[in-house]
């Protein structure tokens, strides 16, 4: 029975991993990139200058801009710059319409001059972040699909642990250059090495959208009134409606200072101003997520916008909320400093590698059976093509996204959309390429192309902007320099992988030939 249980779990691990592996690979890789969301945006908008952060000045600048450009808006949002992302963002919403999402107008300002930044239009790192959980699908389907993928990942992880009986002994076993064996050892090693990360990241992704995917208890406890549930959880955001009489909004900067005093000098992440031109104006100052590990959704201080009267300070969160908040905070990693951020990035890459090696193993095992006949069944060919497009194809698409950012003219109308489109066009083309070419050739060609594209990114940056490595390193602009260097490193890695693949194709036939000979020897 015990052996049967383990076999059943291995079966579940195999098939859950295969069916969702391609999607999970893309989710993991784009999510890993999202840890450097701000840095990627900085690279993709080289026009945004980095200034020393000064909250009071930024708030004053944003308020002046909004009072001139959106005096009648229903709500303003001000996102303050931080050391990782130097842009000051202001958003406003003319009418609050709960049925529609995202009817915001957003502008990036220079935090010193208050001028609207003439930066190239781009989604920057936000693209990877959004794709990571929305999958470029209409709301809410992408979120559902990514959460379903997270549940499958959870099942695959736990069944993988059950299957893998000698978890610690096998960890020290790595048999290089043994083909299928090496892949399995590698799969196990990256799986076990960062197992706590995998478990945390997977369970937390379920927790992040739990109110969407598991709403039964809200519906049952609040008689279907989900609004009441959220108001009870986050009382600070339950603001008074507009009265329709004009009011005069106070300067926001002193309110920010008052809010910081409430948090013992914690940092402000963003401000929301409700009904800015009304007597019932209210200002919600929210704490920056980078302040601590446990994310507090409701960590908000609310003021009356006309009198400056302190309306509400959100209470310390309860234990269940703190547990939920820790999952969220750990997943997002806002609190992580440079070193920890790199650790997050590496763990994310390890997770991506675990999924990738798993897909390779599935195919490799089954291909061996058909190696002699030379005829590949359709389903194996399908998996092969999808493996190619989902792994090396995605890498090429990411590189093309960066290339498009530098090559599309900065003044080109819908350039931001075209960046995204070039990402998907490139991805589609790699799928086509994978279908047309023989497997090993396709791997070598795609990995090689990816290598060239990534290695040339620093060069491209030097040719199209004045922020090349010589300048950025001398200035100490680590986000810019780090991006170039990481691309170079990724390119070198892909080149090595392509070279390995080429090399292996020369070795393999010899090994294949050797085996039948010995077998014959035994028979005769």
């Amino acid at each position: 029975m015990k052996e049967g249980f383990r076999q059943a779990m291995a079966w579940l691990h195999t098939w859950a991993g295969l069916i969702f592996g391609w999607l999970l690979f893309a989710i993991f890789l784009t999510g890993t990139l999202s840890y450097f969301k701000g840095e990627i945006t900085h690279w993709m908008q080289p026009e945004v200058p980095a200034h020393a952060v000064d909250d009071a000045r930024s708030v004053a600048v944003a308020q002046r801009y909004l009072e001139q450009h959106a005096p009648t808006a229903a709500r303003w949002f001000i996102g303050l710059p931080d050391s990782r992302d130097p842009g000051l963002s202001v958003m406003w919403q003319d009418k609050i319409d709960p049925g529609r999402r995202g009817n915001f107008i957003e502008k990036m300002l220079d935090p010193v001059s208050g001028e609207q930044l003439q930066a190239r239009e781009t989604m920057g790192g936000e693209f990877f972040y959004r794709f990571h959980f929305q999958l470029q699908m209409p709301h809410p389907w992408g979120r559902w699909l990514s959460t379903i993928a997270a549940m499958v990942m959870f099942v695959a992880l736990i069944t993988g642990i059950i299957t893998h009986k000698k978890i610690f002994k096998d960890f020290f076993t790595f048999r290089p250059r043994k083909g299928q064996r090496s892949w399995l050892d590698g799969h196990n090693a990256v799986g076990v090495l960062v197992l706590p990360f995998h478990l945390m990241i997977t369970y937390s992704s379920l927790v992040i959208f739990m109110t969407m995917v598991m709403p039964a208890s809200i519906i049952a406890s609040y008689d279907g009134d989900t609004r009441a549930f959220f108001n009870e959880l986050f009382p600070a955001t339950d603001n008074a409606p507009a009265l329709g009489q004009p009011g005069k909004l106070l300067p926001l900067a002193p309110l920010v200072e008052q809010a910081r005093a409430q948090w013992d000098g914690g940092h402000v992440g963003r401000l929301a101003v409700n009904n800015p031109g009304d007597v019932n104006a209210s200002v919600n100052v929210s704490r920056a997520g980078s302040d601590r590990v446990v994310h507090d959704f409701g960590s908000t201080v609310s003021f009356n916008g006309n009198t400056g009267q302190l309306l509400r300070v959100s209470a310390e969160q309860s234990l269940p909320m703190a547990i939920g908040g820790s999952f969220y905070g750990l997943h997002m990693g806002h609190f992580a400093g440079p070193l920890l951020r790199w650790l997050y990035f590496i763990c994310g890459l390890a997770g991506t590698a675990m999924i990738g090696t798993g897909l390779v193993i599935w195919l490799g095992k089954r291909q061996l059976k058909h190696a002699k006949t030379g005829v590949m069944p359709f389903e194996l060919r399908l998996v092969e093509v999808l493996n190619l497009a989902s792994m090396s194809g995605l890498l090429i698409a990411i590189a093309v996204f960066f290339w498009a950012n530098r090559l599309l003219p900065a003044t080109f109308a819908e350039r931001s959309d075209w960046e995204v489109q070039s990402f998907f066009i490139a991805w589609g083309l790699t799928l086509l390429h994978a279908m047309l070419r023989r497997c090993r050739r396709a791997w070598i060609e795609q990995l090689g192309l990816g290598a060239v594209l990534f290695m040339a990114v620093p060069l491209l940056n030097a040719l199209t902007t004045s922020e090349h490595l010589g300048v950025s390193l001398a200035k100490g602009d680590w986000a810019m320099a780090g991006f170039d260097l990481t691309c170079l490193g990724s390119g070198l890695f892909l080149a090595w992988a392509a070279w390995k693949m080429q090399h292996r194709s020369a070795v393999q036939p010899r090994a294949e030939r050797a085996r039948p000979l010995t077998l014959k020897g035994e028979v005769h």
Partner: protein
Amino acid sequence: MKSKASLPLSYRLGVTSRLLAAVVGGYVLASLASVCLSFWLPLSRADAVVSGMLSSFVFYLLAVIWCFACRSAARAWFGVLVPCAILATLAGLAYWMGRP
């Protein structure tokens, strides 16, 4: 796994049935568990709801594992539906006690 062509139809139907039990039955089980916890946990209403949602995915996982570990598809359904019935009774009891 052997090559798919050699697998009998009954086996495939069994796998489909287990899959349905795991995905649909497991979701219902997880939902009922979260409802039950939100009614019975001695916490404030919002906290109990959050705790129920937080832990629901573990119930889902256990249901999925059960559905593929047990000996037959019938047992898979049995093992999911019986806890569902118990949880539903407990939740109904709490609901009925809460509002006379």
